[in-house]
């Protein structure tokens, strides 16, 4: 089956992104496909390129980026939630005249419509709340 996942919790403050990662790995193992992960609310912080935990702690955002690359999963961050919270790509940094941008490679900013679309085009949409 074709799955999409929504994540509303940021890294290190709660379990959402971590639970979602375990779920995704289990779903892939069972032969399902995951087409899109949509980050909303504080979940957008998982899209930062600057997450820098100590070496003895799991880097969940980095694990997501790796899993997505290996399994062709689209990682999408809600643009309105992200820009408000200070997660920008090059284009938005220019649009808001900000000196730098910080979105991780392989993650894209897009509209909330992508979450609606994920619900419509996947067999299952599984949400991991804050």
């Amino acid at each position, binding site marked *: *089956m074709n*799955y999409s996942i929504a994540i*509303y919790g940021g890294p290190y403050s*709660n*379990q*959402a992104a971590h*639970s979602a990662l*375990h*779920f995704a*790995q*289990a*779903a892939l*193992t*069972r032969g*399902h496909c995951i087409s899109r992960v949509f980050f909303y609310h504080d979940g957008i912080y998982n899209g930062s390129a600057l997450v820098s935990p100590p070496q003895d702690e799991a880097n969940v955002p980095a694990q997501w980026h790796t899993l997505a690359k290996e399994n062709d999963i689209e990682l999408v961050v809600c643009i309105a939630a992200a820009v408000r919270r200070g997660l920008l790509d090059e284009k938005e940094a220019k649009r808001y005249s900000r000196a730098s941008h910080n979105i991780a490679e392989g993650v894209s900013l897009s509209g909330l419509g992508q979450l609606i679309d994920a619900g419509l085009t996947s067999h*299952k*949409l*599984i*949400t*991991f*709340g*804050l």
Partner: protein
Amino acid sequence: MILHTVNKSPSTQSTLKECLFTATNGDNILLIEDGVYGSTTAFKALLKEGLHYFVLQEDLDARGIAIDQLAPEWTAISYTGFVELTETADTVCSWF
């Protein structure tokens, strides 16, 4: 059939209570994260009949809750079991 996931402890928030209020015969309930505290015997009185109750083993283990502390209604499952529950659900509703 709806699969409801709940991730909050029933002592701090009414998430589980609200979930059970809306769940109907044949629905599956799955506790994850801090929600797993709700599977212990202390909260047995919240449960109603006609629902199937599951709790995520990994989250129980992480919190040091042993199987013998659970009310008898609950079945502990792995993440694979979680995926299996989503396969058969018409809708998955996440309570947080």
